[in-house]
Protein backbone atom coordinates (compact mmCIF):
# COMPACT_ATOMS: atom_id res chain seq x y z
CA UNK A 1 0.00 0.00 0.00
CA UNK A 2 2.72 2.45 1.01
CA UNK A 3 4.67 1.49 -2.08
CA UNK A 4 1.61 2.22 -4.19
CA UNK A 5 1.15 5.68 -2.67
CA UNK A 6 4.82 6.46 -3.20
CA UNK A 7 4.52 5.31 -6.79
CA UNK A 8 1.44 7.46 -7.36
CA UNK A 9 3.05 10.52 -5.79
CA UNK A 10 6.07 10.11 -8.00
CA UNK A 11 3.78 9.90 -11.00
CA UNK A 12 1.90 13.04 -10.00
CA UNK A 13 5.20 14.90 -9.61
CA UNK A 14 6.32 13.84 -13.05
CA UNK A 15 3.05 14.84 -14.63
CA UNK A 16 3.13 18.12 -12.72
CA UNK A 17 6.23 19.41 -14.40
CA UNK A 18 3.61 21.40 -16.26
CA UNK A 19 -0.06 22.13 -15.79
CA UNK A 20 -1.42 19.65 -18.24
CA UNK A 21 -4.81 20.66 -19.58
CA UNK A 22 -4.63 18.63 -22.77
CA UNK A 23 -5.95 15.27 -21.59
CA UNK A 24 -8.20 14.94 -24.63
CA UNK A 25 -5.10 14.92 -26.82
CA UNK A 26 -3.58 12.19 -24.74
CA UNK A 27 -3.19 11.18 -21.11
CA UNK A 28 -0.04 10.13 -19.28
CA UNK A 29 0.19 6.40 -18.57
CA UNK A 30 -0.84 5.51 -15.04
CA UNK A 31 1.76 3.66 -12.97
CA UNK A 32 -0.72 0.87 -12.19
CA UNK A 33 -1.25 0.37 -15.90
CA UNK A 34 2.45 0.43 -16.67
CA UNK A 35 3.39 -2.04 -13.94
CA UNK A 36 0.67 -4.43 -15.10
CA UNK A 37 2.11 -4.35 -18.61
CA UNK A 38 5.84 -4.33 -17.86
CA UNK A 39 6.27 -8.11 -17.34
CA UNK A 40 4.97 -8.64 -20.86
CA UNK A 41 7.93 -6.72 -22.23
CA UNK A 42 10.59 -8.33 -20.10
CA UNK A 43 9.62 -11.81 -18.92
CA UNK A 44 6.38 -12.90 -20.50
CA UNK A 45 7.44 -11.85 -23.97
CA UNK A 46 5.98 -14.78 -25.87
CA UNK A 47 4.02 -14.66 -29.08
CA UNK A 48 0.47 -15.75 -28.24
CA UNK A 49 0.39 -17.85 -31.41
CA UNK A 50 3.41 -19.96 -30.37
CA UNK A 51 2.69 -23.55 -29.43
CA UNK A 52 4.81 -23.64 -26.30
CA UNK A 53 4.59 -22.51 -22.69
CA UNK A 54 6.00 -19.02 -23.24
CA UNK A 55 3.49 -18.43 -25.99
CA UNK A 56 0.66 -19.89 -23.97
CA UNK A 57 1.44 -17.56 -21.10
CA UNK A 58 0.88 -14.56 -23.38
CA UNK A 59 -2.17 -16.14 -24.97
CA UNK A 60 -3.80 -16.66 -21.58
CA UNK A 61 -3.01 -13.10 -20.55
CA UNK A 62 -4.73 -11.76 -23.66
CA UNK A 63 -7.71 -14.00 -23.09
CA UNK A 64 -8.01 -12.68 -19.55
CA UNK A 65 -7.75 -9.09 -20.73
CA UNK A 66 -10.43 -9.75 -23.33
CA UNK A 67 -12.68 -11.30 -20.70
CA UNK A 68 -12.18 -8.33 -18.43
CA UNK A 69 -13.14 -5.87 -21.17
CA UNK A 70 -16.05 -8.01 -22.33
CA UNK A 71 -17.44 -7.87 -18.83
CA UNK A 72 -17.00 -4.10 -18.65
CA UNK A 73 -18.74 -3.33 -21.91
CA UNK A 74 -21.21 -6.21 -21.50
CA UNK A 75 -20.41 -8.26 -24.56
CA UNK A 76 -18.91 -11.61 -25.51
CA UNK A 77 -15.19 -12.22 -25.78
CA UNK A 78 -15.21 -12.80 -29.51
CA UNK A 79 -16.85 -9.44 -30.00
CA UNK A 80 -13.69 -7.56 -29.07
CA UNK A 81 -11.08 -6.86 -31.74
CA UNK A 82 -7.82 -5.34 -30.54
CA UNK A 83 -6.33 -2.80 -32.94
CA UNK A 84 -3.47 -0.31 -33.08
CA UNK A 85 -5.43 2.89 -32.39
CA UNK A 86 -8.82 4.54 -32.20
CA UNK A 87 -8.37 5.66 -35.78
CA UNK A 88 -7.72 2.10 -36.90
CA UNK A 89 -10.84 0.86 -35.09
CA UNK A 90 -12.93 3.54 -36.81
CA UNK A 91 -11.44 2.60 -40.18
CA UNK A 92 -12.09 -1.08 -39.56
CA UNK A 93 -15.72 -0.46 -38.58
CA UNK A 94 -16.53 1.77 -41.54
CA UNK A 95 -14.34 0.37 -44.30
CA UNK A 96 -14.93 -3.18 -43.07
CA UNK A 97 -18.59 -2.76 -44.00
CA UNK A 98 -17.87 -0.83 -47.19
CA UNK A 99 -15.42 -3.48 -48.41
CA UNK A 100 -18.02 -6.18 -47.88
CA UNK A 101 -20.38 -4.31 -50.18
CA UNK A 102 -17.61 -3.76 -52.73
CA UNK A 103 -16.82 -7.48 -52.67
CA UNK A 104 -20.47 -8.42 -53.16
CA UNK A 105 -20.92 -5.91 -55.97
CA UNK A 106 -17.85 -7.26 -57.78
CA UNK A 107 -19.10 -10.83 -57.38
CA UNK A 108 -22.51 -9.93 -58.72
CA UNK A 109 -21.09 -7.77 -61.49
CA UNK A 110 -22.99 -4.64 -60.46
CA UNK A 111 -22.18 -1.14 -59.28
CA UNK A 112 -21.67 -0.55 -55.57
CA UNK A 113 -24.65 0.90 -53.78
CA UNK A 114 -25.44 2.11 -50.32
CA UNK A 115 -24.98 5.09 -48.07
CA UNK A 116 -23.19 5.89 -44.85
CA UNK A 117 -24.51 8.41 -42.37
CA UNK A 118 -22.47 10.43 -39.90
CA UNK A 119 -22.57 13.94 -38.47
CA UNK A 120 -20.72 17.15 -39.07
CA UNK A 121 -18.69 17.35 -35.85
CA UNK A 122 -17.02 13.93 -36.03
CA UNK A 123 -13.30 13.43 -35.58
CA UNK A 124 -11.18 13.42 -38.75
CA UNK A 125 -10.81 9.65 -38.38
CA UNK A 126 -14.48 9.31 -39.31
CA UNK A 127 -14.81 12.32 -41.63
CA UNK A 128 -11.80 11.52 -43.78
CA UNK A 129 -12.72 7.83 -43.96
CA UNK A 130 -16.20 8.82 -45.10
CA UNK A 131 -14.78 11.28 -47.63
CA UNK A 132 -12.68 8.49 -49.10
CA UNK A 133 -15.72 6.23 -49.38
CA UNK A 134 -17.46 9.05 -51.23
CA UNK A 135 -14.56 9.20 -53.68
CA UNK A 136 -14.96 5.53 -54.52
CA UNK A 137 -18.69 5.75 -55.07
CA UNK A 138 -20.64 5.49 -51.83
CA UNK A 139 -23.17 8.12 -50.82
CA UNK A 140 -22.29 9.91 -47.57
CA UNK A 141 -24.81 11.94 -45.58
CA UNK A 142 -23.76 14.40 -42.91
CA UNK A 143 -26.33 15.15 -40.21
CA UNK A 144 -26.21 18.65 -38.74
CA UNK A 145 -25.88 19.56 -35.09
CA UNK A 146 -27.62 22.42 -33.30
CA UNK A 147 -25.80 25.41 -31.81
CA UNK A 148 -25.02 23.44 -28.66
CA UNK A 149 -23.32 20.71 -30.70
CA UNK A 150 -25.99 18.04 -30.26
CA UNK A 151 -27.14 16.05 -33.28
CA UNK A 152 -30.49 16.85 -34.91
CA UNK A 153 -32.27 13.56 -34.36
CA UNK A 154 -35.10 14.37 -36.73
CA UNK A 155 -32.64 14.86 -39.58
CA UNK A 156 -31.05 11.53 -38.74
CA UNK A 157 -34.39 9.74 -38.89
CA UNK A 158 -35.10 11.27 -42.27
CA UNK A 159 -31.69 10.46 -43.70
CA UNK A 160 -31.80 6.72 -43.04
CA UNK A 161 -33.24 4.64 -45.87
CA UNK A 162 -33.13 1.02 -46.95
CA UNK A 163 -29.76 1.50 -48.62
CA UNK A 164 -28.07 2.76 -45.44
CA UNK A 165 -25.17 0.48 -44.56
CA UNK A 166 -24.01 2.15 -41.35
CA UNK A 167 -24.65 5.11 -39.08
CA UNK A 168 -21.55 6.38 -37.23
CA UNK A 169 -22.07 8.94 -34.47
CA UNK A 170 -19.41 9.80 -31.91
CA UNK A 171 -20.10 9.43 -28.18
CA UNK A 172 -18.45 12.64 -26.95
CA UNK A 173 -16.81 15.30 -29.06
CA UNK A 174 -13.05 15.69 -28.85
CA UNK A 175 -13.11 19.50 -29.09
CA UNK A 176 -16.18 20.48 -27.11
CA UNK A 177 -16.81 17.40 -24.99
CA UNK A 178 -20.47 17.51 -26.06
CA UNK A 179 -22.12 14.13 -25.46
CA UNK A 180 -24.46 12.73 -28.10
CA UNK A 181 -27.61 10.91 -26.96
CA UNK A 182 -26.56 7.43 -28.09
CA UNK A 183 -29.55 5.53 -26.65
CA UNK A 184 -31.93 7.79 -28.59
CA UNK A 185 -29.82 7.53 -31.74
CA UNK A 186 -29.79 3.76 -31.31
CA UNK A 187 -33.57 3.69 -31.03
CA UNK A 188 -33.89 5.42 -34.38
CA UNK A 189 -31.37 3.05 -35.98
CA UNK A 190 -33.03 -0.05 -34.51
CA UNK A 191 -36.45 1.06 -35.78
CA UNK A 192 -35.01 1.30 -39.27
CA UNK A 193 -32.88 -1.81 -38.84
CA UNK A 194 -29.59 -0.03 -39.49
CA UNK A 195 -26.20 -0.70 -37.86
CA UNK A 196 -24.79 1.91 -35.46
CA UNK A 197 -21.11 2.54 -34.73
CA UNK A 198 -19.84 5.01 -32.17
CA UNK A 199 -16.40 6.50 -31.75
CA UNK A 200 -16.24 6.45 -27.96
CA UNK A 201 -12.58 7.42 -27.57
CA UNK A 202 -13.31 10.60 -25.66
CA UNK A 203 -16.17 9.22 -23.58
CA UNK A 204 -14.50 6.01 -22.45
CA UNK A 205 -12.94 7.37 -19.28
CA UNK A 206 -16.09 8.95 -17.87
CA UNK A 207 -19.25 7.59 -19.47
CA UNK A 208 -21.41 4.46 -19.55
CA UNK A 209 -19.79 1.82 -21.74
CA UNK A 210 -22.40 -0.94 -21.55
CA UNK A 211 -23.09 -1.52 -25.26
CA UNK A 212 -26.50 -3.05 -24.50
CA UNK A 213 -27.58 0.06 -22.61
CA UNK A 214 -26.15 2.28 -25.32
CA UNK A 215 -27.60 0.12 -28.08
CA UNK A 216 -24.47 -0.07 -30.20
CA UNK A 217 -23.44 -2.59 -32.86
CA UNK A 218 -19.88 -1.30 -33.09
CA UNK A 219 -17.84 0.83 -30.70
CA UNK A 220 -14.33 2.28 -30.84
CA UNK A 221 -12.14 2.86 -27.79
CA UNK A 222 -8.43 3.68 -27.58
CA UNK A 223 -5.80 3.48 -24.89
CA UNK A 224 -4.09 6.83 -25.15
CA UNK A 225 -7.12 8.74 -23.87
CA UNK A 226 -7.65 6.60 -20.78
CA UNK A 227 -4.22 6.67 -19.14
CA UNK A 228 -2.95 3.72 -21.15
CA UNK A 229 -0.54 3.32 -24.06
CA UNK A 230 -0.55 5.15 -27.35
CA UNK A 231 -0.86 2.81 -30.30
CA UNK A 232 -3.57 0.69 -28.69
CA UNK A 233 -7.26 0.47 -29.42
CA UNK A 234 -10.19 -1.86 -29.68
CA UNK A 235 -13.32 -2.29 -31.70
CA UNK A 236 -16.40 -3.85 -30.19
CA UNK A 237 -18.21 -5.65 -32.97
CA UNK A 238 -21.52 -7.46 -32.58
CA UNK A 239 -20.85 -11.11 -33.40
CA UNK A 240 -23.48 -11.09 -36.15
CA UNK A 241 -21.57 -8.48 -38.11
CA UNK A 242 -18.90 -9.65 -40.51
CA UNK A 243 -16.26 -7.06 -41.35
CA UNK A 244 -13.80 -7.38 -44.18
CA UNK A 245 -10.36 -7.03 -42.61
CA UNK A 246 -8.14 -4.09 -43.54
CA UNK A 247 -5.00 -6.00 -42.62
CA UNK A 248 -4.56 -9.54 -43.89
CA UNK A 249 -2.17 -12.10 -42.48
CA UNK A 250 -2.48 -14.67 -39.74
CA UNK A 251 -5.68 -15.70 -38.01
CA UNK A 252 -5.37 -13.16 -35.22
CA UNK A 253 -8.35 -11.37 -33.67
CA UNK A 254 -10.91 -13.78 -35.10
CA UNK A 255 -9.52 -13.26 -38.60
CA UNK A 256 -10.55 -9.62 -38.53
CA UNK A 257 -7.20 -7.96 -37.78
CA UNK A 258 -3.98 -9.79 -38.57
CA UNK A 259 -0.64 -9.14 -36.91
CA UNK A 260 1.06 -10.39 -33.77
CA UNK A 261 -0.87 -9.04 -30.83
CA UNK A 262 0.50 -6.06 -28.91
CA UNK A 263 0.46 -8.07 -25.70
CA UNK A 264 1.61 -5.38 -23.22
CA UNK A 265 -0.68 -2.87 -24.94
CA UNK A 266 -3.69 -5.15 -24.61
CA UNK A 267 -2.93 -5.88 -20.95
CA UNK A 268 -2.56 -2.14 -20.32
CA UNK A 269 -5.78 -1.28 -22.11
CA UNK A 270 -7.74 -3.78 -20.03
CA UNK A 271 -6.20 -2.52 -16.81
CA UNK A 272 -6.91 1.12 -17.69
CA UNK A 273 -10.54 0.36 -18.52
CA UNK A 274 -10.90 -1.57 -15.29
CA UNK A 275 -9.52 1.34 -13.25
CA UNK A 276 -11.67 3.86 -15.09
CA UNK A 277 -14.79 1.87 -14.19
CA UNK A 278 -13.81 1.72 -10.55
CA UNK A 279 -13.17 5.46 -10.36
CA UNK A 280 -15.69 6.70 -12.89
CA UNK A 281 -18.37 8.06 -10.58
CA UNK A 282 -16.09 9.68 -8.06
CA UNK A 283 -13.73 11.14 -10.63
CA UNK A 284 -16.57 12.39 -12.85
CA UNK A 285 -18.12 14.16 -9.90
CA UNK A 286 -14.80 15.72 -8.89
CA UNK A 287 -14.02 16.91 -12.39
CA UNK A 288 -17.53 18.18 -13.09
CA UNK A 289 -17.18 20.41 -10.06
CA UNK A 290 -13.77 21.66 -11.21
CA UNK A 291 -15.03 22.13 -14.76
CA UNK A 292 -18.00 24.23 -13.66
CA UNK A 293 -15.73 26.24 -11.36
CA UNK A 294 -13.35 26.86 -14.27
CA UNK A 295 -16.21 27.93 -16.56
CA UNK A 296 -17.64 30.27 -13.93
CA UNK A 297 -14.22 31.84 -13.38
CA UNK A 298 -13.74 32.44 -17.11
CA UNK A 299 -17.19 33.95 -17.47
CA UNK A 300 -16.85 36.14 -14.40
CA UNK A 301 -13.27 37.30 -14.72
CA UNK A 302 -12.60 37.66 -18.44
CA UNK A 303 -14.96 39.91 -20.38
CA UNK A 304 -16.19 39.07 -23.90
CA UNK A 305 -15.85 35.31 -23.79
CA UNK A 306 -18.13 32.43 -24.59
CA UNK A 307 -18.23 28.75 -23.73
CA UNK A 308 -18.67 26.62 -26.84
CA UNK A 309 -20.99 23.63 -26.70
CA UNK A 310 -23.70 22.52 -24.33
CA UNK A 311 -22.69 23.16 -20.73
CA UNK A 312 -24.51 20.14 -19.28
CA UNK A 313 -24.37 17.43 -21.95
CA UNK A 314 -20.61 17.61 -21.80
CA UNK A 315 -17.65 15.56 -20.59
CA UNK A 316 -16.69 16.34 -16.99
CA UNK A 317 -13.21 17.37 -18.07
CA UNK A 318 -13.85 19.67 -21.06
CA UNK A 319 -13.87 23.45 -21.24
CA UNK A 320 -13.92 25.02 -24.71
CA UNK A 321 -13.91 28.80 -24.61
CA UNK A 322 -13.58 31.62 -27.16
CA UNK A 323 -11.90 34.87 -26.19
CA UNK A 324 -13.18 37.53 -28.57
CA UNK A 325 -10.77 39.64 -30.56
CA UNK A 326 -7.70 37.41 -30.27
CA UNK A 327 -6.44 34.26 -31.91
CA UNK A 328 -6.30 30.83 -30.28
CA UNK A 329 -2.73 29.87 -31.06
CA UNK A 330 -1.40 33.06 -29.52
CA UNK A 331 -3.24 32.31 -26.30
CA UNK A 332 -1.96 28.73 -26.37
CA UNK A 333 1.66 29.85 -26.72
CA UNK A 334 1.37 32.49 -24.01
CA UNK A 335 -0.03 29.90 -21.61
CA UNK A 336 2.67 27.47 -22.72
CA UNK A 337 5.28 30.03 -21.71
CA UNK A 338 3.84 29.89 -18.17
CA UNK A 339 3.86 26.11 -18.09
CA UNK A 340 0.22 25.56 -19.00
CA UNK A 341 -0.50 23.11 -21.81
CA UNK A 342 -3.73 23.59 -23.70
CA UNK A 343 -4.96 23.03 -27.21
CA UNK A 344 -6.77 24.85 -29.95
CA UNK A 345 -8.88 23.53 -32.76
CA UNK A 346 -8.34 26.79 -34.53
CA UNK A 347 -6.51 27.49 -37.72
CA UNK A 348 -2.90 28.03 -37.15
CA UNK A 349 -1.84 25.38 -34.69
CA UNK A 350 -3.04 22.53 -36.85
CA UNK A 351 -1.88 21.62 -40.31
CA UNK A 352 -4.81 23.36 -41.92
CA UNK A 353 -5.55 27.05 -41.86
CA UNK A 354 -9.30 26.66 -41.53
CA UNK A 355 -10.87 27.18 -38.15
CA UNK A 356 -12.32 24.22 -36.28
CA UNK A 357 -14.89 22.35 -38.38
CA UNK A 358 -16.61 21.37 -35.14
CA UNK A 359 -17.27 24.94 -34.02
CA UNK A 360 -18.17 26.02 -37.56
CA UNK A 361 -20.72 23.20 -37.76
CA UNK A 362 -22.32 24.60 -34.61
CA UNK A 363 -22.89 27.86 -36.46
CA UNK A 364 -20.09 29.70 -34.67
CA UNK A 365 -18.60 32.52 -36.75
CA UNK A 366 -15.09 32.35 -38.17
CA UNK A 367 -13.67 34.99 -35.86
CA UNK A 368 -15.04 33.30 -32.75
CA UNK A 369 -13.96 29.86 -33.90
CA UNK A 370 -10.45 31.28 -34.44
CA UNK A 371 -10.46 32.53 -30.83
CA UNK A 372 -11.12 29.19 -29.19
CA UNK A 373 -9.07 27.28 -26.65
CA UNK A 374 -9.69 23.83 -25.24
CA UNK A 375 -8.81 22.94 -21.66
CA UNK A 376 -9.19 19.26 -20.83
CA UNK A 377 -8.70 18.35 -17.19
CA UNK A 378 -7.38 15.08 -15.84
CA UNK A 379 -6.58 12.94 -12.82
CA UNK A 380 -3.91 15.26 -11.49
CA UNK A 381 -5.89 18.50 -11.93
CA UNK A 382 -6.40 20.59 -8.79
CA UNK A 383 -8.35 23.75 -8.01
CA UNK A 384 -5.07 25.53 -7.37
CA UNK A 385 -3.97 24.81 -10.93
CA UNK A 386 -7.20 26.29 -12.24
CA UNK A 387 -6.77 29.43 -10.15
CA UNK A 388 -3.24 29.90 -11.45
CA UNK A 389 -4.41 29.29 -15.01
CA UNK A 390 -7.17 31.89 -14.70
CA UNK A 391 -4.60 34.42 -13.50
CA UNK A 392 -2.25 33.74 -16.42
CA UNK A 393 -5.15 33.58 -18.85
CA UNK A 394 -6.41 36.99 -17.75
CA UNK A 395 -2.99 38.56 -18.28
CA UNK A 396 -2.42 36.86 -21.64
CA UNK A 397 -5.84 37.75 -23.00
CA UNK A 398 -5.35 41.36 -21.94
CA UNK A 399 -1.93 41.57 -23.55
CA UNK A 400 -3.12 40.06 -26.82
CA UNK A 401 -6.21 42.23 -26.93
CA UNK A 402 -3.99 45.30 -26.60
CA UNK A 403 -2.30 44.40 -29.85
CA UNK A 404 -5.45 43.26 -31.63
CA UNK A 405 -6.83 45.49 -34.40
CA UNK A 406 -10.31 44.06 -33.95
CA UNK A 407 -10.61 44.27 -30.19
CA UNK A 408 -11.84 47.88 -30.11
CA UNK A 409 -14.65 46.94 -32.49
CA UNK A 410 -15.45 43.76 -30.60
CA UNK A 411 -15.63 45.62 -27.29
CA UNK A 412 -18.42 47.79 -28.63
Amino acid at each position, binding site marked *: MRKKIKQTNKWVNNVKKSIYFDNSATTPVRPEVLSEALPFFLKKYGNPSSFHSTGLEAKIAIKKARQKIAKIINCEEQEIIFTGSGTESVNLAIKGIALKEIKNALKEGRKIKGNFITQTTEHDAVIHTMNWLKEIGFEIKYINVDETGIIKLKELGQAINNETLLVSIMYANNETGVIQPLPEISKICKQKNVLLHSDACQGAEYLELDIKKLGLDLMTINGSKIYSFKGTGLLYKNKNIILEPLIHGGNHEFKTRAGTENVPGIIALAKALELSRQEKNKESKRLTKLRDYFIKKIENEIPQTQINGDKKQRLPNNINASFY*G*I*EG*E*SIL*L*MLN*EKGIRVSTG*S*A*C*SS*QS*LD*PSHVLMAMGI*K*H*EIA*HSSIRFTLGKTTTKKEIDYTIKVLKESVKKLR*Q*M*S*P*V*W*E*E*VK*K
Partner: protein
Amino acid sequence: MKMEGQDWFYSKKVKEHFLKPKNILKNEKEIKKFNGYGKVGNMKCGDIMEMWIKVENEKIIDCKWKTFGCASAIASTSMLSVMLTEKKGIKLTDALKITGNDIMKRLGGLPQIKIHCSVLGDQALREAIKNYEKNNSTIPKIDKKIKLNKPKLETKLKK
Protein backbone atom coordinates in the same frame (compact mmCIF):
# COMPACT_ATOMS: atom_id res chain seq x y z
CA MET B 1 13.01 23.05 -39.11
CA LYS B 2 15.15 21.63 -36.34
CA MET B 3 13.08 20.25 -33.48
CA GLU B 4 15.58 18.51 -31.21
CA GLY B 5 16.36 20.27 -27.99
CA GLN B 6 13.66 22.82 -28.69
CA ASP B 7 10.78 23.57 -26.41
CA TRP B 8 9.09 25.69 -29.03
CA PHE B 9 7.67 25.15 -32.47
CA TYR B 10 9.14 28.40 -33.75
CA SER B 11 12.63 29.87 -33.90
CA LYS B 12 14.14 31.78 -30.97
CA LYS B 13 13.65 35.06 -32.82
CA VAL B 14 9.95 34.38 -33.36
CA LYS B 15 9.56 33.56 -29.70
CA GLU B 16 11.35 36.76 -28.71
CA HIS B 17 9.18 38.96 -30.92
CA PHE B 18 5.97 37.15 -29.98
CA LEU B 19 6.51 37.45 -26.24
CA LYS B 20 8.00 40.94 -26.39
CA PRO B 21 6.67 42.54 -29.55
CA LYS B 22 8.20 45.86 -30.61
CA ASN B 23 6.36 48.98 -31.78
CA ILE B 24 2.78 48.03 -30.97
CA LEU B 25 0.31 50.88 -31.17
CA LYS B 26 -0.67 51.07 -27.53
CA ASN B 27 -2.73 54.22 -27.51
CA GLU B 28 -5.28 55.19 -30.14
CA LYS B 29 -4.33 58.83 -29.58
CA GLU B 30 -0.93 58.15 -31.13
CA ILE B 31 -2.58 57.62 -34.51
CA LYS B 32 -2.59 61.29 -35.42
CA LYS B 33 1.21 61.31 -35.39
CA PHE B 34 1.24 59.13 -38.49
CA ASN B 35 0.63 59.97 -42.12
CA GLY B 36 0.25 56.56 -43.68
CA TYR B 37 -2.11 53.72 -42.79
CA GLY B 38 -2.66 50.21 -44.13
CA LYS B 39 -4.83 47.31 -43.19
CA VAL B 40 -4.83 43.84 -44.76
CA GLY B 41 -6.10 40.35 -44.06
CA ASN B 42 -9.46 38.94 -43.18
CA MET B 43 -11.14 36.96 -40.47
CA LYS B 44 -11.69 33.95 -42.68
CA CYS B 45 -8.03 33.05 -42.73
CA GLY B 46 -7.59 34.37 -39.23
CA ASP B 47 -5.03 37.13 -39.70
CA ILE B 48 -5.56 40.89 -39.74
CA MET B 49 -2.79 43.50 -39.67
CA GLU B 50 -2.92 47.23 -39.27
CA MET B 51 0.11 49.44 -39.80
CA TRP B 52 0.74 53.13 -39.26
CA ILE B 53 3.82 54.85 -40.69
CA LYS B 54 5.29 58.28 -40.30
CA VAL B 55 7.04 59.51 -43.44
CA GLU B 56 9.34 62.49 -43.57
CA ASN B 57 11.45 63.45 -46.58
CA GLU B 58 10.51 60.22 -48.32
CA LYS B 59 11.77 58.21 -45.35
CA ILE B 60 9.77 56.11 -42.90
CA ILE B 61 10.92 57.33 -39.52
CA ASP B 62 8.35 55.71 -37.27
CA CYS B 63 5.99 52.80 -37.46
CA LYS B 64 3.38 51.20 -35.22
CA TRP B 65 1.13 48.19 -35.74
CA LYS B 66 -1.61 45.95 -34.46
CA THR B 67 -2.14 42.31 -35.36
CA PHE B 68 -4.81 39.69 -34.87
CA GLY B 69 -3.27 36.33 -35.57
CA CYS B 70 -1.04 33.50 -34.51
CA ALA B 71 2.43 33.86 -33.00
CA SER B 72 4.18 34.02 -36.36
CA ALA B 73 1.83 36.77 -37.56
CA ILE B 74 2.57 38.83 -34.45
CA ALA B 75 6.30 38.16 -34.58
CA SER B 76 6.57 38.93 -38.29
CA THR B 77 4.83 42.30 -37.97
CA SER B 78 7.04 43.12 -35.01
CA MET B 79 10.15 42.17 -36.98
CA LEU B 80 9.02 44.22 -39.97
CA SER B 81 8.55 47.26 -37.73
CA VAL B 82 12.10 46.80 -36.48
CA MET B 83 13.45 46.48 -40.02
CA LEU B 84 11.75 49.76 -40.92
CA THR B 85 12.96 51.76 -37.94
CA GLU B 86 16.28 50.22 -36.89
CA LYS B 87 18.62 52.50 -38.85
CA LYS B 88 16.88 55.75 -38.07
CA GLY B 89 14.36 54.96 -40.72
CA ILE B 90 14.28 53.65 -44.22
CA LYS B 91 13.76 55.25 -47.64
CA LEU B 92 10.32 54.56 -49.11
CA THR B 93 11.94 53.07 -52.18
CA ASP B 94 13.90 50.63 -49.99
CA ALA B 95 10.89 49.85 -47.81
CA LEU B 96 8.96 48.82 -50.90
CA LYS B 97 11.67 46.29 -51.69
CA ILE B 98 11.12 44.36 -48.44
CA THR B 99 9.51 41.00 -49.15
CA GLY B 100 7.87 38.41 -46.96
CA ASN B 101 10.95 36.30 -47.54
CA ASP B 102 13.21 39.01 -46.06
CA ILE B 103 11.08 39.17 -42.91
CA MET B 104 11.13 35.40 -42.66
CA LYS B 105 14.92 35.30 -42.98
CA ARG B 106 15.31 37.77 -40.15
CA LEU B 107 13.00 35.62 -38.02
CA GLY B 108 15.18 32.57 -38.55
CA GLY B 109 12.56 30.85 -40.70
CA LEU B 110 8.93 29.90 -40.32
CA PRO B 111 7.07 26.62 -40.73
CA GLN B 112 5.86 26.18 -44.32
CA ILE B 113 2.18 26.50 -43.43
CA LYS B 114 2.78 29.78 -41.60
CA ILE B 115 4.49 31.63 -44.41
CA HIS B 116 1.34 33.44 -45.51
CA CYS B 117 1.46 35.32 -42.19
CA SER B 118 4.72 37.10 -42.89
CA VAL B 119 3.66 37.91 -46.42
CA LEU B 120 0.82 39.84 -44.84
CA GLY B 121 3.24 42.18 -43.06
CA ASP B 122 4.82 43.53 -46.21
CA GLN B 123 1.37 43.86 -47.76
CA ALA B 124 0.22 46.02 -44.86
CA LEU B 125 3.31 48.16 -45.33
CA ARG B 126 2.61 48.58 -49.06
CA GLU B 127 -0.95 49.62 -48.25
CA ALA B 128 0.36 52.15 -45.74
CA ILE B 129 2.79 53.61 -48.26
CA LYS B 130 0.04 53.78 -50.89
CA ASN B 131 -2.12 55.55 -48.37
CA TYR B 132 0.66 57.99 -47.52
CA GLU B 133 1.17 58.80 -51.18
CA LYS B 134 -2.54 59.34 -51.66
CA ASN B 135 -2.71 61.64 -48.66
CA ASN B 136 0.35 63.46 -49.82
CA SER B 137 -0.78 64.13 -53.34
CA THR B 138 -3.53 66.40 -52.07
CA ILE B 139 -1.70 67.77 -49.07
CA PRO B 140 1.75 68.88 -50.12
CA LYS B 141 3.14 69.75 -46.70
CA ILE B 142 3.71 66.92 -44.30
CA ASP B 143 3.77 69.01 -41.16
CA LYS B 144 0.14 70.01 -41.59
CA LYS B 145 -2.44 68.01 -39.73
CA ILE B 146 -3.34 65.23 -42.04
CA LYS B 147 -6.70 63.62 -42.13
CA LEU B 148 -6.01 59.99 -42.65
CA ASN B 149 -7.72 58.41 -45.55
CA LYS B 150 -8.65 55.10 -43.97
CA PRO B 151 -9.07 52.40 -46.57
CA LYS B 152 -12.35 50.56 -46.43
CA LEU B 153 -11.90 47.61 -44.13
CA GLU B 154 -12.07 44.30 -45.84
CA THR B 155 -13.70 42.72 -42.88
CA LYS B 156 -15.41 44.24 -39.95
CA LEU B 157 -16.56 42.16 -37.07
CA LYS B 158 -20.29 42.05 -37.11
CA LYS B 159 -21.66 43.33 -33.88
